[in-house]
């Protein structure tokens, strides 16, 4: 059995709060999960759920209160673990007096490579993230979306096996988001593992092999996006057109939404055939019938509502 790309074992993080810093606020509570090699793994949760805390723990920017993690078998305390990862921080900010090319060259110097190799790789990466024409412009003149692209470029600079991306699509326009999605898919094809947090749930649904949902610092569920959604009750959406002068069948009229000449009605799955019978009797022309599956977004929103934090919910006092 191969070594998992990421193994998180009971990671917990408490931050001291208050003037005397004696009370502790728990940001992450006993998180355990495994990400297999070559997976695209989405990490979802509302603000303050502990997503960024987890990524910072994995990159060694903060230290766990208890628990540990391993990346490709190496402990997160091991400096050599850092050779395996590429990290994109949330809303990345870089040295604004450098150009994108200079920044990448600076970061590339922490890994063994010749000047020629560095130059070639940087030029290729700048092309890949669509910044070739702005490569020699100082970063202080970059837009948020351009900085995000630089962030992606620096994360994949050393061709890492595991990518830890904190909100990689944030700040990007639809074209930029599609490009980042393409990069992620391409990296997976090359055998890389991608672990990313996101608020953009459609991206997670589209990209991820599996997702984990975090709320209030606790893991709420892990699974394929489809598995999580299949827990929900289904409904059906019917789109139809009625002949001129024909009224909506009375049994459906309460729930019908008219969009020009078209009508839309949502019925429970168990009542689908009864609704179709009524529409047939009204000589309605069916345009589409589609299942309304609760999206990841619905799941996510329900979790957020359930997890409305009570005051000092996760605080503990240290003696």
């Amino acid at each position, binding site marked *: 059995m191969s070594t998992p790309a990421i193994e998180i074992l009971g990671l917990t993080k408490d*931050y001291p709060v208050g003037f005397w810093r004696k009370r502790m606020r728990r940001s992450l509570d006993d998180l355990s999960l495994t990400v297999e090699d070559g997976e695209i793994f989405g990490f979802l949760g509302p603000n303050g759920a502990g997503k960024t805390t987890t990524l910072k723990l994995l990159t060694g*920017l903060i*230290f766990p209160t208890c628990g540990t993690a391993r990346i490709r078998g190496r402990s997160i305390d091991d400096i050599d673990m850092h050779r395996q990862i590429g990290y994109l921080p949330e809303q*990345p900010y870089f040295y604004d*007096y450098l150009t994108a090319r200079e920044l990448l060259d600076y970061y590339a110097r*922490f890994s063994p490579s010749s000047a020629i190799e560095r130059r070639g790789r940087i030029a290729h990466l700048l092309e890949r993230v669509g910044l070739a024409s702005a490569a020699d412009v100082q970063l202080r003149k970059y837009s948020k979306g351009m900085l995000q692209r630089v962030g992606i470029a620096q*994360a994949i600079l050393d061709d890492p096996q595991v990518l*830890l991306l904190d909100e990689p699509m944030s700040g990007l326009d639809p074209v930029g988001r599609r490009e980042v999605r393409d990069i992620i898919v391409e990296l997976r094809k090359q055998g890389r593992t991608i672990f990313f947090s996101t608020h953009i749930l459609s991206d997670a649904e589209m990209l991820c092999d599996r997702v984990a949902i975090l709320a209030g610092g606790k893991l709420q569920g892990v699974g394929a996006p489809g598995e999580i959604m299949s827990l929900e009750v289904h409904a059906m959406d019917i789109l139809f057109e009625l002949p001129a002068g024909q009224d909506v069948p009375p049994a459906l009229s309460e729930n019908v939404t008219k969009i020009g000449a078209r009508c839309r009605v949502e019925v429970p799955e168990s009542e689908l055939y009864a609704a179709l019978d009524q529409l047939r009797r009204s000589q309605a022309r069916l345009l589409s019938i589609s299942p309304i599956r609760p999206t990841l977004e619905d799941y996510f929103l329900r979790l957020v509502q359930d997890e409305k934090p009570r005051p000092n919910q996760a605080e503990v006092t240290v003696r």
Partner: protein
Amino acid sequence: MSRAPVPVAVNTFREAIRDRVLYNLIFFALLMIGAAILVGQISIGIDRLVIVNLGLSAISLIGLVMAIFIGVGLVSKEMERRTLYSLLARPIRRWEFLLGKYGGLLLTLVVNTGFMTLGLAAALFYVSGPFVRTDALILVAVYFILLALAVVTALALFFSCFSSPMLSTLFTLGIYLTGCFAGDIREFGDLTQSQGMKLMSRVVYYLVPNFHNFNVIAAAAHGESIPLSLVGENTLYAALYVALLLVAASAVFSSRNLK
């Protein structure tokens, strides 16, 4: 030995250059030109003394301002702007990062001080003609200034690892000023009757770096000899202090959560 501090040092130096830190040289050049012209008119016979005193004092003061104000931001600015995140996710240890930041600022100070020394030499040449042997003492004084700046930079870096830039500035400046009067504080303590004051003055004397020993500006201006042993002692003293401060800074920074 890891090479990771080298790119950090180069980048720190580059940041200083691009932030136009070396613009202070223009101020120094103007000061030297003005002083040279003025001295020629008002101070017959002591023109060399005035120029050397003024020049070395300006080099020391400008260096001090740079060491403190850039030094206190070395780490805190990177944390505040979060530029540190993508850097420390790479294979670089925190102490290597600190060493690089320290080296980069020291390099900036050496380059800056080097140019100012050239400016002082030019002004001296203009005022009192060809150099004489005792002028070499100016170089010793500049070397001591650099040693003092190396200690000040290490102090600023140490404080910047755990406190805000404003507090770090206060702490560093406070220790620098205390260190300039370390000998006087000890003598003052010896003169008092209170055992507590005696003890406290001794603790302060041994704890804070003695910056008074690095100040040979008057001796250099008067052409008085500076013992070679002092050069060795000051070098060793500064090296030990810097090493201690960098180790302490690394210990603090290595356990710090970068929130």
